[in-house]
């Protein structure tokens, strides 16, 4: 028996829309009943370049403001250090198509785009970071980094965080200038939606140097976590030896956090600031067992090299927080299970999507794991972040509506 199709979509006639791209994610959210789980995405991004004209107006220094408005902040082409075909030369379609997405005049475009993907994925609250601005860490002019970071943080607080309670951020710290970092914590620590502060881990700096101690003390006193957000730079001397993105990204995004982690531990920061919480963002998970084993082994032979440590390095690492993405999931279930055990995942792991970037992970990467129980899944997907950031566990309007519909239909919540 033949049936004529009554409904079809012709891709050539469609304008790019995040909700369409992610409709399969929305189906996952419905099938898995995410309305029963508070989901916090601890690492997501927007493209602040699209709002750079607005951000530039927030630059204090009139000369730098003029220069920023003239130069813009767009990424370079194929020959530039940042021209790194992250989007696999167009294969990840949301990169080139994103600019064509139609949004209403209000609220701000960034809020609309954020809420569209959050609703499709089933995310209630997202911690949002910039994208190209993470590379400010490699800007040779430190005064530019300071000026832009103040401007971006002001724009972010005024335009996004004040307006949309579902969006939070850990604010960018211009780590080359410890004194400026302190001023940023002072100015923005109480602003709505600010849940911590963040260092891009490609900062070519020594996190154990004395000028940073005041900043760590300030964060500890305010109970604000410090995040080290991984990145890569093709300007790194060793990574300059790579010629393909998979190599510079695969290595760079772990190497920079490994370096900061090693310095952080052997200089005894967890003993100097025992209540300062650190979050290690976007390096995946496979590097953590390696660091634990390697540092423990060497430490037991040369404890005099790290005399502030009262326990093994891995003991301190188990008290830190790690975001989940990009979770290494290809043919390695046993290794992943051991990793979860080694890092105390049920209390220390924080779900992150990294959306809209090319290697984003959906909540199902955690929800579908066969080796942890439902309570651990709920902790990782949102409960741990709720405690860490002291969040109100409020479901998104979409999920509230879904829950209400279920209640009306007599289907109990879990």
């Amino acid at each position: 028996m033949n049936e004529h199709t009554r409904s079809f979509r012709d891709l050539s006639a469609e304008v790019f829309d995040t909700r369409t791209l992610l409709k399969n994610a929305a189906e996952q959210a419905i099938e898995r009943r995410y309305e029963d789980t508070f989901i916090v995405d601890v690492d997501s991004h927007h493209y602040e370049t699209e709002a750079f004209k607005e951000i530039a107006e927030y630059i204090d220094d009139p000369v730098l403001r003029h220069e920023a408005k003239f130069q813009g902040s767009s990424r370079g082409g194929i020959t530039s250090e940042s021209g790194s075909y992250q989007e696999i030369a167009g294969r990840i379609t949301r990169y080139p198509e994103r600019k064509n997405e139609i949004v209403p005049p209000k609220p701000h475009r960034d809020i609309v785009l954020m809420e569209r993907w959050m609703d499709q994925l089933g995310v209630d609250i997202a911690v949002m970071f910039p994208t190209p601005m993470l590379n400010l860490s490699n800007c040779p002019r430190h005064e530019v980094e300071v000026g832009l970071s103040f401007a971006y943080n002001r724009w972010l607080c005024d335009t996004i965080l004040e307006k949309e309670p579902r969006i939070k951020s850990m604010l960018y710290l211009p780590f080359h200038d410890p004194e400026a970092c302190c001023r940023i914590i002072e100015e923005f620590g109480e602003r709505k939606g600010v849940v911590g502060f963040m260092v891009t881990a490609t900062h070519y700096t020594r996190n154990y140097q004395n000028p940073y101690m005041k900043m760590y003390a300030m964060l500890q006193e305010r109970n604000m976590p410090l995040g080290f957000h991984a990145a890569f730079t093709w300007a790194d001397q060793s990574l300059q030896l790579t010629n393909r993105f998979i190599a510079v990204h695969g290595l760079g995004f772990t190497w920079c956090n490994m370096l900061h982690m090693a310095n952080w531990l052997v200089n005894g920061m967890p003993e100097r600031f025992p209540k300062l919480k650190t979050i290690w963002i976007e390096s995946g998970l496979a590097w953590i067992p390696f660091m634990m084993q390697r540092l423990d082994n060497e430490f037991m032979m040369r404890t005099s090299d790290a005399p502030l440590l009262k326990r093994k390095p891995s003991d301190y690492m188990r008290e830190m927080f790690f975001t989940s993405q990009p979770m290494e999931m290809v043919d390695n279930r046993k290794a992943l299970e051991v990793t979860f055990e080694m890092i105390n995942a049920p209390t220390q792991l924080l779900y992150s999507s990294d959306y809209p970037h090319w290697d984003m992970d959906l909540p199902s990467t955690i929800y579908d794991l066969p080796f942890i129980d439902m309570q651990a899944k709920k902790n990782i997907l949102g409960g741990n972040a709720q405690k860490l950031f002291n969040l109100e566990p409020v479901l998104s309007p979409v999920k509230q509506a879904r829950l209400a519909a279920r209640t009306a239909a007599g289907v109990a919540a879990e």
Partner: protein
Amino acid sequence: MPEVLVCKDGEIAEGGVRLIKVGREEIGVIRHSNKYYAYRNVCPHQGGPACEGLRMPQVVDRIGEGGILLGQTFDEDDMHIVCPWHGYEFHLADGCHVIDRNLRLKRYEVVQRGGEIFIAV
């Protein structure tokens, strides 16, 4: 096996895709080099809409005598379906992932008859 009429031959432009809903499933019907292919629009990786991405040929490292890299090129005879979420690539011809054949898009038979295109579901 029941057949579903997709369209008239030629209604999908060369290189184009039509997505049709059959029950709860969405199926992508792809026209490439005047042949038609049909796959479920769900990637086995994280569930992305695989049929909504680009079609790209296999990238080839051209290696000469003694292991010398001569450059890169495309193998236009091995077209891939590229999932737009993460870039997983599948052979257009059979829907298998280009490295791991255990990962595959669900394939549907395409029938051309009387100037019309059907898929068997």
